[in-house]
């Protein structure tokens, strides 16, 4: 009789040990794959930001001929681009990218006053491409933040939080998505 109880007990104990070992492995793997996914989505944002920066010289040269007297806005766009290209870490890049997006937006608003420019094929195509890139950046950030949410969920809920502190995985921050600024645009002639 005791023999049976002992055998059952040992089997159950063995099962519990296996499950706990599996938990150690699976939580670690989960944290690592989520971290990798987050890094990957960061590089995706980078790709889109770079595409935007690459289009700026073309944009500037196509508007220069028409907007001869709008030096300040053209300068802000060029400066913002320089800042983006020179940015080192990702939060710097994202902030610089936002500033560039802002400057480009103001440039397009001012361009509304130049009907000849608005009829220019090259300009229209650039406008469309830059608008598409804006959407893609928004989606990349959304995906990045989704990854952060999953990661934070797994590292802060029970029992993940115990494994997380054991392995040294900490909570991560979300990317701040700027609201579209609707301030009146000052047009200088």
């Amino acid at each position, binding site marked *: 009789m005791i023999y049976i109880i002992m055998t059952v007990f040992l089997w159950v104990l063995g099962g519990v040990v296996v499950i706990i070992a599996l938990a150690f492995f699976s939580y670690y793997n989960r944290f690592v794959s989520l971290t990798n996914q987050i890094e990957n989505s960061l590089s995706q944002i980078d790709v889109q930001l770079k595409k935007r920066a690459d289009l700026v010289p073309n944009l500037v040269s196509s508007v220069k001929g028409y907007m001869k007297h709008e030096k300040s806005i053209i300068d802000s766009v060029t400066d913002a681009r320089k800042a983006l290209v020179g940015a080192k870490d990702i939060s710097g890049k994202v902030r610089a990218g936002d500033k560039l997006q802002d400057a480009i937006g103001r440039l397009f608003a001012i361009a509304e006053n130049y009907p000849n420019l608005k009829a220019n094929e090259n300009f229209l195509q650039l406008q469309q491409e830059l608008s*598409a890139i804006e959407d893609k950046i928004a989606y990349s950030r959304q995906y990045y933040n989704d990854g952060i949410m999953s990661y934070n969920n797994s590292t802060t809920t029970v029992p993940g939080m115990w494994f997380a502190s054991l392995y040294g995985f900490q909570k991560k921050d979300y990317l701040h998505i700027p609201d579209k600024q609707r301030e009146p645009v000052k047009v200088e002639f």
Partner: protein
Amino acid sequence: MEQARLSFYDEIRKNKIYSVLLMFVVFIILIAIGYAISYAFDPSYLFFILVISIIISILYVWIGYYNSASISLSSVNAKPANPRENRMFYDLVEGLTLASGLPMPKLYIMNNPQINAFASGRDPKNAVVCLTTGALEKLNKQELEGVLSHELSHIANYDIRFMTLAAVLVGMIAIISEMFLRSLWMQSNNSDDNKNGGIFLIIGIVLAILAPILVQLVQLAISRKREFAADASGVRFTRTPTGLINALTKIKSNSEMKVSGAVSPLFLAKPNRAMNLFETHPPIEVRIERLRKM
């Protein structure tokens, strides 16, 4: 916004659970038939039937599954989309792949004035998305995005693989039932085994006749659930149901499209008319209602 988020995650989870439960029902029916047959006849007979039906249905479906994308594309005469001419199509799908983490599928266009779309492919790496010319002409950017998000969700949820699995099981049950009934017909001259399996024989016959119909109804129910799930998953990517709601509203005034029965379940909205229980798609009004609640 938080509440809206939970709703569509819940919707997705609910539909996936129901799909699995329905598959379970199909399995039970399969086993029930098996038992009935084995009581009525020799168990080795059951083994024989099972092996043959598994081989046939798997072969048949595997070929279809492996080539599902090319089969469905050629049956509707779809042409590859042009990255330059169909810039918006490409941009929208690229944006959605960034939001979903999916690889970029191949894009196609089919010539039809009705608004519709379908996705096919055994996994995200071998996926295709096809739009009708009607969709490209009649939908605006946000509506197109909603439609494309729904299609990408089918790919992301591995719906095509799941529906194929369901088709395999349905096929197997149909073949088993068929073989069982035929063998009864042939064995009716042999009175040896009748004494043993009397009641199970009757159950077996009833099951064999009803089962294929029952499992097809289950398969259609699964198909409808997956459509709801794809609607909800689509919202997860676009973060607003507005685009898809407006697109479905426009689709309500679609007329019939001439497509073969095999391809029609893959479409965004049902291309052909059918009776209610045999619908592959849920009614558009119900879909719009559920989307509004998100």
